[in-house]
């Protein structure tokens, strides 16, 4: 079994290798495998979101279907499938059916260039002895030489599902939600694109494998490019239409935004698209800023370790998506647009100029000013908070007593 895995694995990095029939078949197999993983994780995210939300609000969440409610997504799928597929008369039929598909596909296809693991092999010198250096070779579905730009290009297509869904529904809530969402997504796409430029500037390559190798050799870009990291993270929240940027479906004013008129599996596809976008967004943050599938040499244990590291890091950022949802309130639309255009755009540009200047004149220390200052500020703030808490003698909040056996306390609620 182990030999088989190694053989399969070593067939993956094929830059410059001959393109055989079996190479293509292998890649197609990989596509099928990863698409299924993506869909299953997407479905599990629906469960995770509800459980984590419940945990943060001190309730239970779905826990009846299967162990810990893990089979809830399957039950949901069954319910979505057998619900009536209502296509209201007032909609533009073809566009109405096309929109959910269009919103799901770009999210899935982006995943093609993200390395999920790789090999880590020592370089042997002329005398046959290891030189102490390593080659980090990432494995992904498609190793495109314009990788980063490919991601931006495909991400820019995500806006169509929302726009068309809103327009085709021919309902006021849907249209408003769709138009708002499109304007928001294109505004933050700029910041997203600009935030990655400093990364490319430092790595000098658009291949995601090279970006990971650079981080494995030096330091995670999170530490040298904290501004780019922050902008990228926030912009990816806006791109996925999640709180605090869930303007397009702000329930309190627009019912459900662009998918108000959707039901059955079409609604489920929109839902799945949102979660797939989240997974891809988290995986991208991990790849571009947090070292991807590498973790300080732990990945040398084998490619399965790489998969685990990648999954663990991605899970953390997925958790952060939910965490932020229950922590921050929603932005107002004018605040959201002002943040994107008046703040993120110039800051991202300045960051590019600063990084470019530091690299051009070999003043690398400039890159470390901000992270050091941020850490110092955090330490000082924590110390002041500690002092103030000591002075005020704030009593610790006690957890409310659990009501055991009382009707309603063991119920499940979304």
């Amino acid at each position: 079994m182990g030999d088989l895995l190694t053989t399969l694995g070593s067939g993956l990095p094929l830059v410059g290798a001959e393109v055989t029939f079996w190479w293509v078949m292998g890649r197609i197999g990989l596509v099928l495998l990863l698409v299924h993983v993506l869909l299953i994780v997407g479905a599990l995210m629906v469960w995770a979101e509800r459980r984590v939300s419940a945990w943060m609000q001190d309730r239970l969440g779905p826990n009846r279907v299967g162990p810990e409610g893990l089979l809830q997504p399957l039950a949901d799928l069954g319910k979505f499938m057998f619900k009536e597929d209502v296509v209201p008369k007032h909609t533009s039929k073809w566009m109405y059916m096309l929109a959910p598909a269009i919103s799901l596909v770009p999210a899935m296809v982006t995943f093609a260039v993200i390395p999920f693991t790789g090999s880590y092999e020592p370089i042997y010198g002329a005398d046959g002895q290891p030189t102490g250096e390593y080659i980090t070779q990432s494995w992904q579905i498609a190793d495109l030489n314009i990788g980063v730009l490919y991601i931006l290009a495909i991400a820019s297509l995500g806006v169509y599902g929302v726009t068309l869904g809103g327009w085709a529904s021919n309902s006021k809530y849907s249209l408003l939600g769709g138009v708002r969402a499109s304007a928001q997504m294109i505004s933050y796409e700029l910041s997203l694109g600009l935030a990655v430029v400093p990364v490319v500037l430092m790595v000098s390559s658009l291949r995601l494998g090279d970006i990971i190798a650079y981080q494995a050799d030096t330091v995670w870009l999170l530490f040298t490019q904290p501004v780019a990291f922050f902008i990228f993270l926030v912009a990816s929240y806006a791109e996925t239409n999640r709180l605090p940027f869930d303007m397009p479906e702000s329930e309190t004013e627009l019912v459900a935004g662009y998918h108000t008129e959707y039901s059955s599996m079409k609604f489920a596809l929109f839902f799945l698209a949102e979660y797939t976008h989240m997974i891809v967004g988290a995986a991208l943050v991990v790849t571009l800023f947090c070292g991807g599938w590498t973790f300080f040499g732990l990945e040398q244990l084998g490619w399965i370790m790489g998969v685990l590291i990648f999954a663990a890091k991605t899970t953390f950022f997925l958790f952060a998506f939910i965490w932020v949802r229950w922590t921050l309130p929603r932005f107002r639309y004018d605040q959201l647009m002002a943040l994107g255009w008046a703040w993120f755009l110039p800051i991202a540009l300045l960051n590019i100029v600063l990084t470019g200047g530091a690299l051009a004149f070999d003043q690398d220390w400039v890159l470390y000013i901000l992270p050091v200052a941020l850490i110092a500020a955090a330490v000082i703030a924590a110390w002041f908070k500690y002092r103030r808490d000591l002075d005020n003698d704030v009593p610790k909040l006690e957890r409310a007593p659990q009501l055991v056996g009382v009707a309603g306390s063991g119920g499940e609620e979304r």
Partner: protein
Amino acid sequence: MTTALFYVFGATALAAALLAVTRKNAVASAIWLIVMFFGLAANYVLMEAWFVAVVQVLVYAGAIMVLFLFVIMLLDLRTEVLESTAAPRLPAVGVIAALLFLVGGGIAVHSASLDPGPDPQTGEARQAAALFPDEVATGPEIEGTAENIGGEIFGKWILAFEVTSVLLLGAILGAVILTKRRLT
């Protein structure tokens, strides 16, 4: 293999383009136009112009078509309105435009096959380009990676690149002025 793929993607692009101009619903036209851009991008990939292919999707399919959709939705012209305002001789105009295009294209193809005359630098006679050459030789062949494109833009075409920024600036000012007047 690449030739066969070229015809597949070329046919896709052509069919999508035809559908784009024949659809009555403007939004459907826009969607077929997006499909056509994908066909073009695939053909760029076959020409090893990776960067151009991805920019085709990023700028045309991802940005300009969003603008188109916005305009279509913003105006939201009903089909009746379109029919009542459309010029009655529209088909005739279309035929004339197609004829002009054919004549123009014919002249371009014909002039390409003419004797180009002596080379202005060396004075040697140059060979006429074949109408359907097996291999088009146009300067040194470079692969269309982002790095090579960067080398060309930021080396040879530096002035054009800087002037582009002024062009973009002009467009920004124009857009703001045009929309501002209607807002107030």
